[in-house]
């Protein structure tokens, strides 16, 4: 075995994100890792490459027990990580990038350029890459930069190569080229871990596949002994809670509050069309990076779009800024709570009232602090937000309570269209179910809701219809009745 792990586990501030991983990797093997977002595969490869240290368990390289305490230790032990987005020094030469961190100097520490250039040339030739090692990195394609990162790994005599979704930024042509190189490395005895969401690619390149789910290693199979359906089933598991989606009176009518037609933004999403009724919860499923958040931001006016049209109550509209969108009745609970959702060192009551300046001030702009407090208290009570007082700083609250504050803030603006982007991320189970109740109740009151979530059970138990996106396009619109996790996954990955 080139690499073997025994009982590897990782805990982050009390939360167990990886448990009992027993994994092995043979020389000359391509071993695929698959799993949903947050399943633990990234944490696992970060442990192997020294970014994280495991809380428990052992790692064996070449049958020797090693402790990989930092990326440098990983490198010295022959483990190299190829990042999804190549991490290169764009103003330095190809050769400098290949030998970054281990350039040998002469006695006066002067770099032996000829040596480095000729060695780089050798390595590049060995993987069939025709690039002059003296040219500057900037201007090379992502694919070439990725190859050069691989060349860097070879220059360090790496024995284990970990590739984290290497194909996602590549065109099909470039993927073919990458696979040629992977096959060449494989025949030279390199052990390769390959992470991808694209099952077809995994089938094409790998020998074995290991499936992760919720921090557990579920199983390892020879790729020829397992079907795509089986892999998907392993990924989502069988323990699905079935909850009834709540119907309401608005859904029977046929008037749409929001219609999006052929919305496109170059390199982010294209040809997005959908309708949304009052009182409807429309789920957006897909993998991270499928373009769901970008669509939401364009509708909300936080980003522009290139083509297409948005109809709101039958009229064509354009939101040039969130401000215009909010005036029309849109609200957006962002995915990145810390960066875009809260004002950290600011009182809860100022956070909650931040989107409704007119509600808390008179015509001259004078703040009515009584109305600030009463509006805040109304929602603190309604949503059972746990805090000492409205003056407490929001950053001192737990993630779930912060999220309740953000929802309160948007409900104060009485939105007609509420966009929720990963509303329960980093929120504990109790708050999660409270949040579901709130979402259902809003729909019953006639609010149209767009629910972006990477958790399939969440999408399934709330949404009346589900839009599945993949790589910037809508691949399927499902009714709740026909939707299953398996079906959604099969449209979310190819």
């Amino acid at each position, binding site marked *: 075995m080139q690499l073997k792990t025994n009982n590897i586990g990782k805990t982050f501030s009390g939360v167990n994100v990886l448990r009992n991983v027993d994994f092995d990797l043979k020389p000359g093997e391509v071993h695929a890792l698959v799993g949903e977002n947050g399943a633990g595969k990234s944490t696992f490869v970060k442990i192997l490459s020294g970014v994280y240290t495991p809380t428990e368990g052992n790692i064996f390289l070449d049958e020797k027990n090693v402790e990989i305490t930092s990326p440098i230790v990983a490198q010295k032990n022959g483990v190299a990580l190829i990042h999804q987005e190549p991490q290169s020094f764009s103003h330095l030469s190809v050769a400098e990038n290949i030998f970054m961190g281990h350039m040998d100097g002469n006695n006066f520490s002067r770099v032996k350029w000829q040596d480095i250039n000729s060695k780089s040339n050798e390595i590049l030739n060995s993987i069939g890459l025709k690039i002059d090692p003296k040219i500057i990195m900037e201007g090379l394609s992502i694919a070439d930069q990725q190859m050069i990162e691989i060349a860097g790994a070879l220059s360090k005599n790496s024995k284990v190569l970990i590739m984290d979704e290497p194909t996602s930024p590549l065109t099909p042509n470039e993927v073919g080229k990458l696979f040629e190189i992977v096959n060449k490395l494989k025949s030279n005895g390199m052990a390769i871990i390959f992470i991808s969401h694209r099952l077809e690619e995994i089938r094409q390149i790998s020998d074995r596949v290991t499936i992760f789910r919720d921090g557990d290693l579920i199983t390892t199979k020879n790729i020829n002994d397992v079907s795509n359906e089986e892999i998907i089933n392993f990924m989502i598991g069988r323990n699905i809670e079935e909850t009834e989606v709540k119907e309401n009176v608005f859904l029977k009518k046929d008037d749409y509050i929001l219609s999006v037609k052929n919305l496109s933004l170059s390199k982010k999403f294209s040809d997005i069309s959908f309708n949304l009724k009052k009182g409807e919860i429309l789920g957006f499923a897909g993998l991270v990076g499928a373009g769901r958040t970008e669509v939401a931001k364009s509708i*909300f006016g*936080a980003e522009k779009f290139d083509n297409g049209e948005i109809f709101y109550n039958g009229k064509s509209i354009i939101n040039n*800024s*969130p*401000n215009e*969108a*909010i*005036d029309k009745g849109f609200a*957006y609970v*962002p995915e990145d709570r810390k*960066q*875009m*959702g*809260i*004002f*950290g*060192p*600011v*009182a809860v009551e*100022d956070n909650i009232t*931040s*989107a409704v*300046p007119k509600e*808390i*001030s008179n015509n*001259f*702009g*004078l*703040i009515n602090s009584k109305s600030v407090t009463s509006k805040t208290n109304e929602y603190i009570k309604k949503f059972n937000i746990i805090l*000492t*007082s409205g*003056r*407490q*700083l929001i*950053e*001192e609250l737990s993630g779930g309570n912060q999220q309740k504050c953000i929802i309160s*803030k948007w409900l104060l603006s009485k939105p007609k269209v509420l966009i929720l982007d990963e509303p329960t991320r980093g929120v504990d189970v109790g708050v999660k179910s409270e949040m579901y109740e709130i979402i259902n109740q809003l729909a019953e009151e006639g609010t149209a809701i767009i629910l972006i979530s990477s958790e399939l059970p969440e999408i399934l138990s709330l949404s009346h219809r589900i839009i599945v996106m993949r790589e910037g396009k809508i691949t399927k619109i499902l009714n709740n009745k026909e939707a299953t996790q398996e079906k959604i996954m099969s449209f979310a990955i190819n």
Partner: protein
Amino acid sequence: MLKRFSIYLSENPTLRYWIVRPEWVAVILLIISVISSIQLSPFFADLAFIMDSATPYVEYGLIAIILTLIIISGEIDLSIASMIALTAVIFGTAYNAGIGMPLSILIALLSGTLCGLFNGILVTQLRIPSIILTIGTLTLYRGIAQSLASDFSLGGYPSWFIGIDYRYVGIVPIPVIIFTVFAIVVGFFLSSTIYGKQLYLIGTNPQTAKYSGIKVDRIKLLLFTLSGLVCGIAGVLTTSRLAVARFNMATGAELEIVLMVMLGGTYIFGGRGNIFGTFVAFWIVVILRAGLNVARIKIESQLTILGAMLIIAIILTNYIYSKSQK
């Protein structure tokens, strides 16, 4: 003891809100400088003397008030001193061209406003960090002033215009009244209106502010423009006080104005601070400068003391903010 007190405070947000504020540092510094100045010379017990000492700093004080707003919103304007000089020189040139006093004042204020607008447009539209941009316009505006006036002193104003610092209401010079009223008005605006509150939110997290529908860019543009206008007012006031306008007026004043804002407890990274702190810090600078003059400490050494105070102010402010919120 201290630990228990801080735990007690974290359980009482309202009390903490009032106690853990860096402007108390400014108040304590003010008391210390008053006491030590009185030790130095009996003049300091005389309110009229202090008032008179304050008039040369009023122009800086007015700008410090606006700069407080700019720093709270997460930006900075370092071109302020150059805008004083440029607007003063434009005023002097216009008056000497014979277009009359009212029109000359109007042109001075207008040119200041345009300078500020230019800063604001580049910061908000081209996304140039204001600290870099206003270092650039600091040089640019001073350069334009120099090309306009060369090394001449532009004078020749009517006597009613000269010496605004010698006009009093009771014992209070008119510039000090202007400054105090301005501080009260802006302080009220900042603390009690929704626009003031939005400045804090923008400075705390511009992204969240944008997603909350706050017109971040428009508000910042307005602030920079306002800064230019107030510099124009300061330019005219300075010319009245000195009776001449020169290109090298107020050289290095940006240091002293930033000092007033920092000393008053406004947080350099935005989101926190207030006008009361800046107002108190203004008086610290006045008394310190007067005290150092009375103690016959050379101007050159005074700069060392002011610089050291700036650094101490920043360290204390940061320390208090890091204690008051985790």
